[in-house]
């Protein structure tokens, strides 16, 4: 016992250090949601990880081909969606005309280069003008919005990522239809900021944020993310909303480009109007 006390006294500094760090860690895990989740997740990951590794090895060999097939099938299915086809022989009712006459074409591609840690992030994909890809086409994946094609070479294309501080897109709340502009603040690859939602709109955590369809790049209603938190900017009367992106940009592999076939027509018309 005396030895034990001597031991404590001798290393009292180190024990005090440990004690304080433990208090810090305790506070950190208990009061910060993000850390809390990581803590719980990583501990359960340990057990599940072992099982996962073994199944990963066996699945791995067919994975690449399976992914490509799924991605191609996705693109095909999207083209088949009712709002993407229109039938000339059968005149649509007036109130559906605008929606039905929009026609989108999807092309699958694979991401071959990607970054998330810069302020101007770009994505390179393995399809180019030979495959019908042109600048200013939207880029989406099965889980949501990715970016917009910037430059095109015969076999490759680069796209400006949503994780680019120069990228701005019109987005709306799925529940209330209020729209605002979404941009990335250059901080975390998981979050973007939605501005210009008026203060009287009903906003709640967890609501989906989707594309508004005004930009002529993306169809309406493509998922962008969900509301993580928000605050009212008292001076301006607008909400500043933090959106948790639905896409994990860290492991983006298969994407699709969206082409709006009537886009030129829409733009020419809008240009005519704004020139007046």
């Amino acid at each position: 016992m005396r030895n034990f006390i001597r031991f404590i006294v001798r290393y009292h500094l180190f024990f005090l250090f440990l004690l304080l760090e433990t208090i810090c860690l305790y506070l950190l895990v208990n009061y910060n949601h993000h850390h809390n989740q990581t803590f719980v997740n990583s501990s359960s990951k340990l057990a599940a990880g072992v099982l996962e590794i073994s199944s990963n090895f066996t699945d791995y060999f067919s994975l690449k081909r399976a992914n490509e097939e799924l991605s191609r099938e996705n693109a095909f299915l999207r083209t088949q969606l009712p709002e993407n086809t229109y039938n000339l022989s059968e005149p649509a009712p007036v109130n559906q005309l605008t929606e039905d006459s929009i026609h989108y074409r999807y092309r699958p591609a694979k991401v071959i280069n990607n970054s998330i840690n810069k302020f101007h992030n770009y994505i390179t994909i393995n399809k180019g003008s030979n495959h019908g890809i042109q600048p200013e086409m939207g880029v989406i994946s099965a889980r949501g919005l990715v970016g917009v094609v910037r430059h095109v070479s015969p076999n490759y294309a680069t796209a400006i990522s949503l994780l680019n501080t120069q990228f701005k897109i019109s987005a709306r709340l799925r529940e209330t239809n209020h729209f605002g502009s979404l941009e990335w603040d250059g901080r975390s690859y998981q979050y973007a900021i939605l501005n210009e939602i008026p203060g009287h709109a009903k906003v709640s955590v967890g609501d989906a944020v989707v594309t508004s369809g005004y930009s002529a790049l993306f169809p309406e209603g493509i998922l962008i993310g969900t509301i993580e938190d928000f605050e009212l900017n008292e001076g301006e009367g607008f909400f500043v909303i933090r959106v948790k992106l639905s896409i994990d940009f860290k492991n983006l592999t298969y994407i699709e480009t969206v082409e709006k076939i009537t886009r030129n027509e829409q733009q020419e018309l809008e240009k005519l109007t704004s020139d007046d």
Partner: protein
Amino acid sequence: MINQLGRYLLSFIAIVLVQVLVLNNLNLGGYVNPWLYVLFILILPVETPKWLLLVFGFITGLIMDAFLNTIGMHASATVFLAFLRPIFLRFLAPRDGYEPGSLPVPSHFGFGWFLKYALVSVTTHHLFLFIVEAFTFENFFVTLWKSILSSLVTIMVIMIAQLFSSREKRRI
């Protein structure tokens, strides 16, 4: 003694205010943020009891956390720095040891010495802070890069702060 206590209390308040009111709103280029408050731990007298250093580190960190809504994060990093400070000082000690009453500031040991001291301490603190912030070793090089950038900015701010306080310190 009382005089000294008052001076440290004043400098503590000044440092915290500058940190909270000015530097926390700076956010250079998105994620580079100078953490000037570590200066308070750095400039405490060489003979400060080690346990007191730890307690001071804990309190300073907790106050910063209270302002930043990151309970525990800065406290843990500052306690870590306070724990390592005596070791850093031992490595940087002059050939015949520290004289009683000496302060680890440029006016006592020179600009170059202080720069070395600040560089080691601030980098350690920031690296610990950013690892705790990320709470993972994934993307370790991003964390490393962020902490190096932030350290450089912090050291710059610390050097500027030293220019303001040096005139007063020389009188001791």
